[in-house]
């Protein structure tokens, strides 16, 4: 069935969206949630396992204290109350990537509740309510072979890798977010971005959506103005910030077309399709499993010492939003300029470059200019472009010292990105240093004058502007390694102008 989707403007003119986000963050603890297995990404399948994370009969979980601490810090950074007593619960369902056929999670007694996160959208601050932050364990990964869909149904073989099973996860659930209107998709994206930055600033996870260490489920519903909230759908498989925005938008459009046609929205899980940008139905929640939650009897309750929580709170780093405002002031940027720094994902990079000795203006120039261009061309995040803040600062230092001009500096950067070494090393090995030996330059200048007598005459007769052509000739013979300003001065002096 194909239906023509209404236009977005039309949808937001007639319907009000309510969104909500459930975000899973893999904690960067050294060991798993309930055993001592390492958590490093990758590894041969089923090599980072033990009786506990394989759920072998008789094995028992023991809580990783580092994971509890990280969760509390996330809760505090999101302005949550930290429970003085809470428990784990078992979420029971059968699936082969769940070693025990239940997941240890938290249900009605989460560790952190009732907080908020302020995000900025179009210069406006939107306060997103946080319902809860709780701990759970990740599942393994299943590969279904032989079926048409790659799903468990119809598969002839299912392969399971339990390396990921038991990795600590923190689930952060927002309260429903009404009232964002046409900005709903952007608010969703801004929230996930801000959440990612907050968690990164805490140093508890690398929060990489591509690697799955930050996963996001997006809830969306539509209602007519003044009416009750509509039935919501939950969209999974949203694997990038851009997808968060697209998923909300596409689900708003889809729901509007269903409602316009007099249909009703089914409460269900849908999967975002990265290629088409729309969502497809998953399993229906109306026939959902009863998870039969009950308190995990193998684990004693968690009762964080209030003094410890206070200590953690006092030691929280400056949150990204506050931090950014301070940087903007220090760097003397307009809101618009700061926005472009943010959009480029360059805040920390510039900050570190400045810390390594560059001026904010120079740091911004390199990261937003040459390096952003390269990142775009090669399709990587700016942080992975191949140059470090220290290298960029060093490069700028060479320019400031007159050892490199702008064009040479770009060539040196090319070498740095290609892994040829530090800027100084690249400059030396490629022999790119500005020619400052006046003897050699004078010879080049004399050569240029001799080769262009007409131009030389013009300059002698006072047409100083003509010197540009001779400068160009000298730069050519010195392969760009001369300082243009010095060359010009030499030419003028030589010709008595």
């Amino acid at each position, binding site marked *: 069935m194909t239906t023509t989707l209404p236009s977005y403007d039309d949808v937001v003119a007639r319907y009000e969206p309510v969104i909500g986000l459930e975000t899973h963050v893999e904690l960067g603890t050294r060991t798993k949630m309930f055993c001592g297995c390492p958590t490093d990404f990758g590894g041969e399948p089923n090599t980072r396992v033990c*009786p506990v994370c394989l759920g*072998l*009969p*008789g094995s*028992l979980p023991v809580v990783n204290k580092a994971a509890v601490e990280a969760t509390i810090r996330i809760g505090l950074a999101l302005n949550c109350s930290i429970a003085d007593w809470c428990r784990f619960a078992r979420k*029971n369902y*059968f699936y*082969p990537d769940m070693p025990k056929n239940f997941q240890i999670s938290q249900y009605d007694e989460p560790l952190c509740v009732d907080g908020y996160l302020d995000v900025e959208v179009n210069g406006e601050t939107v306060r997103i309510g946080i319902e809860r932050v709780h701990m759970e364990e990740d599942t393994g990964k299943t590969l279904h072979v032989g079926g048409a869909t790659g799903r468990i149904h119809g598969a002839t073989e299912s392969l399971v890798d339990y390396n990921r099973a038991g990795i600590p996860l923190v689930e952060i659930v927002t309260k429903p977010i009404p009232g964002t209107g046409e900005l709903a998709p952007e608010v969703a994206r801004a929230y996930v971005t801000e959440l990612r930055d907050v968690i990164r600033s805490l140093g508890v996870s690398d929060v990489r959506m591509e690697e799955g260490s930050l996963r996001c489920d997006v809830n969306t519903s539509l209602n007519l103005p003044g009416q009750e909230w509509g039935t919501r759908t939950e969209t999974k498989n949203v694997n990038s910030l851009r997808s968060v925005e697209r998923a909300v938008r596409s689900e708003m459009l889809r729901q509007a077309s269903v409602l316009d046609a007099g249909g009703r929205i089914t409460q269900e899980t849908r999967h975002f399709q990265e290629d088409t940008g729309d969502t497809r139905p998953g399993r229906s929640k109306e026939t959902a499993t009863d998870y039969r939650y009950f308190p995990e009897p*193998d684990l004693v309750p968690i009762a964080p010492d209030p003094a410890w929580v206070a200590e953690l709170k006092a030691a929280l780093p400056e949150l990204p939003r506050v931090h950014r405002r301070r940087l903007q002031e220090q760097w003397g940027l307009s809101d618009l300029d700061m926005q472009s720094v943010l959009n480029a994902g360059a805040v920390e990079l510039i900050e570190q470059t400045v810390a390594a000795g560059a001026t904010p203006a120079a740091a911004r120039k390199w990261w937003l200019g040459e390096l952003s261009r390269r990142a775009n061309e090669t399709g990587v995040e700016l942080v992975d472009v191949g140059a470090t803040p220290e290298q960029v600062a060093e490069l700028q230092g060479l320019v400031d010292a007159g050892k490199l001009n702008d064009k040479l500096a770009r060539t040196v950067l090319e070498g740095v990105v290609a892994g040829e070494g530090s800027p100084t090393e690249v400059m030396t090995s490629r022999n790119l240093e500005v020619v400052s030996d006046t003897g050699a330059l004078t010879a080049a200048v004399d050569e240029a004058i001799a080769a262009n007598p007409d131009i030389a005459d013009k300059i002698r007769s006072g047409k100083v502007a003509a010197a540009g052509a001779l400068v160009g000739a000298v730069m050519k013979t010195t392969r760009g390694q001369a300082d243009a300003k010095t060359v010009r001065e030499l030419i003028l002096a030589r010709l008595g102008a």
Partner: protein
Amino acid sequence: MSDLTTKTAAEIAALVAGGETSAVEVTQAHLDRIAAVDDQVHAFLHVDTEGALAAARAVDERRAAGEPLGPLAGVPVAVKDVLATKGVPTTVGSKILEGWRPPYDATIVERLRAAGTVMLGKTNMDEFAMGSSTEYSAYGPTRNPWDLNRIPGGSGGGSSAALAAYEAPLAIGSDTGGSIRQPGAVTGTVGAKPTYGGTSRYGLVAFSSSLDTPGPCARTVLDAALLHEAIGGHDPRDSTSIPQPVPDVVAAAKLGATGDLTGVKLGIVTEFAGEGAEPGVLAVFREAVDALTKLGAEIVEVSCPHFTYALPAYYLIAPSECSSNLARFDGVRFGLRVGDDGSRSLEEVMSLTREAGFGPEVKRRIMLGTYALSSGYYDAYYGQAQKVRTLITRDFTAAFEQVDALISPTTPFVAFPIGARTSDPYQMYLADLFTIPTNLYGGPGISVPCGLSDGLPVGLQVMAPTMADDRMYRVAAALESAVGTFTPPAL
């Protein structure tokens, strides 16, 4: 029957330590006894002849090298098949784990090895420890050495029968609702359920996590205390393990053995001293109470009004936890797998595996528990049962403000004939009527033989406050000093 098999663990350890016999001789004597009588008793599911002799040789070598030996070095021990034993089959009495050899040792098994005991093998049990007669073992029932036509109790009937049949001087059991104490009572042996958290559950295949407690079985109270001391204490791999040292149960048993209970106040649980028990059991129990009085104990009656709700609460909590604990038996990673012929989906294979692998009692409890935890029923069943649990704990706390320990018959009836109660689950469940409250509370309980009724053993249960396990050993040892031990007719 070799002389060595009739000795207590304490005696064997002394003989080995003194060089009067070797651990290998002791072990061989018990292996011979098993070979001679276990066809009749069927206490063992697996006898680890080679492993046992190797462990015994290691003890003898350590002794020869002059290395220090622990108080139980060289003593054979039988281990209930509910504990994971590295490389040694562990079935939990179920077809679903047939042939499974765990890649790791339970903490208790590790400690047994470290103590220099010699593991003879794995003992029979009701499947997943669900039962009171060992008749629900998927590998056939164990028979009571006192009368081979009768049950040895359960779920740990194999461990207790092995002791009564002199196949082992020590055994490990696990007690979720009475599975150590009730078999102890009906086989005329000693069985102690430690304080919950006093013995590690790591490696104990879970039935009901909040109730399961591994513990010692022996023919004497002192032997039980020695074994308790060897296996007890904090284990960082078990979150519910109590980070405190084991109460000095050995000293308490020795103190009790002096036969003096002066200054000890004991409470008879009113609710368990009336109609709930067979007249023969009650008569023997009353005689034992008289004996305790003669030893100097002060005896009073204490009412624990909520104990009568213990059985129904238990049959909601234990099945609920088991329905979740047993979900992992799906044929994916270990044990039985049925129907994996390429024609069936994973879900079908999981389902067929569970259908074929679990026996009827296990299925009954999984269904009970699944229902009790279901959305819409949780509060009425599981939630309500937890409230009862709290009330029972209060009964205990209040009682222990008045008395040092509580006493009752261990079980309402002596060993019943095989097959007598299998058709009516409720009649079977009644076997644990007096033992279940202790599990719900989490405190320790011990069953000690106190006499015979129509030629069959009767046990007296002593219940103490949590982490006061030493108290029950003192009382039990005192009673033992008065009434003696009981030997079944020769097999």
